[in-house]
């Protein structure tokens, strides 16, 4: 078992942890964090594949690496949007979750 294999298993574990958090947690903010963990796991899998595909005198295949860089920036933009939507939802309805049957809307304190 090489170091890359160990990190590959960590990537799979990260995907599993992120997926569980995304499904099993109620608060939208925690879902966003879990989604980011899930995404980090997927990016890491790209990194493992890139490392395996080392060739042409390079330490790793540059194509998956470039895609991960693109992905990280887009993930940040998506996270920023999701967070603003969460905040707006809270400001309007006072809700921190997207449960089907929201409790009585309470006025936000600020």
């Amino acid at each position, binding site marked *: 078992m090489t*170091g890359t*294999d*160990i*990190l*590959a*298993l*960590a990537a*799979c*574990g*990260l*995907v*599993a*942890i992120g*997926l*569980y958090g995304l*499904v*099993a*947690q*109620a*608060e939208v*903010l*925690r879902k966003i*964090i*879990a989604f*980011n*963990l899930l995404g*980090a796991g997927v990016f*890491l*899998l790209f990194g493992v*594949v*890139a490392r*395996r*595909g*080392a060739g*042409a005198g*390079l*330490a790793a295949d*540059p*194509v998956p*690496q*470039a*895609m991960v*860089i*693109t992905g*990280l*920036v887009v*993930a*940040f*933009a998506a*996270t*920023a*949007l999701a*967070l*603003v939507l969460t*905040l*707006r939802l*809270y400001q309007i309805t006072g809700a*921190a*979750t997207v*449960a089907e049957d929201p409790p009585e809307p309470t006025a936000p304190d600020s």
Partner: protein
Amino acid sequence: MTAGLLLDLLLALAVLGTAAWTLAARSQFAAVIGFVVTGLLLTLVWVRLGAVDVALTEAAIGAGATGVILLYVVARLRGGEAEISAATPSRAQRALAALLALSVGGALAYGVLSLPDPAPSLAEAALAGTAPLGLGNPVSAVLMAHRGLDTLLEAIVLVFAVLAVWSMAADHRWGGRPGPVFQREEHGPLSLLARILPPVGIVIGIYIAWVGADSPGGKFQGGTILAAMWVLPWIAGLVRPPSVTDWRLRLMIAIGPLTFLAVGLAGFVVAEGFLAYPPGFAKPLILLIEAAMTLSVAAALACLIAGPPERRRRA
């Protein structure tokens, strides 16, 4: 390579441990700290995977910038305990979710461990296609030429993200300055840091963006540093962010994608097609795009961190 192997093992366990802790954390504040710590560890993992470019991006955007915007939202959310516990899935549902997560993780592990060895690689194709550009860093070459369209679309995504975040403001707040108002402490340590760090940081940001042509670095990493150095004086209360209707801010956000698009369209006339560079002029054109994009990334990220426009809160 025993020490290296031990290091990998430790990193893998640490990443999984902090990620699990992030989910288990009782308060949202603690969860965000756990997430940032996981991101920092991932930076080390990327270095171990030989992906220094990605490590720079992860440290700058994945851990730093994402952590900061998460925390500023946590600071304003006050979730009701009752509502959250009512919406939390039952024990059986959570067990099912765990089963789902475990099977997905297991299938992925099986898949990634049974990949052919040596794995198929695009390294040679990418190098062959980008060698005439004269860029020493293969990842930058791929970003600018081999997959240039991805990078262009990503640049446009950032502009749209800023538009979307701004449009979340209530109507009567439109035209205001974004972000919360911070107290200014004239002689505090924060004011000092916000005065001495940006000059150094701006030089380092430009340096990281500049070396991207030949060694790890580039517009996104350098742009994030510049954005952080812009946000720091806001946080210290030394300056206020510009209003969202300021044309200079809007120009800064748009100039990068516009330059990129203009060079891409010019490819129809002076080269073989969209985003093709005329032979001999590839490197200057790429440097022009990179310079404009660094500015735009910095402005867009700073605006995403600051959030939608807000009026000054009446005391």
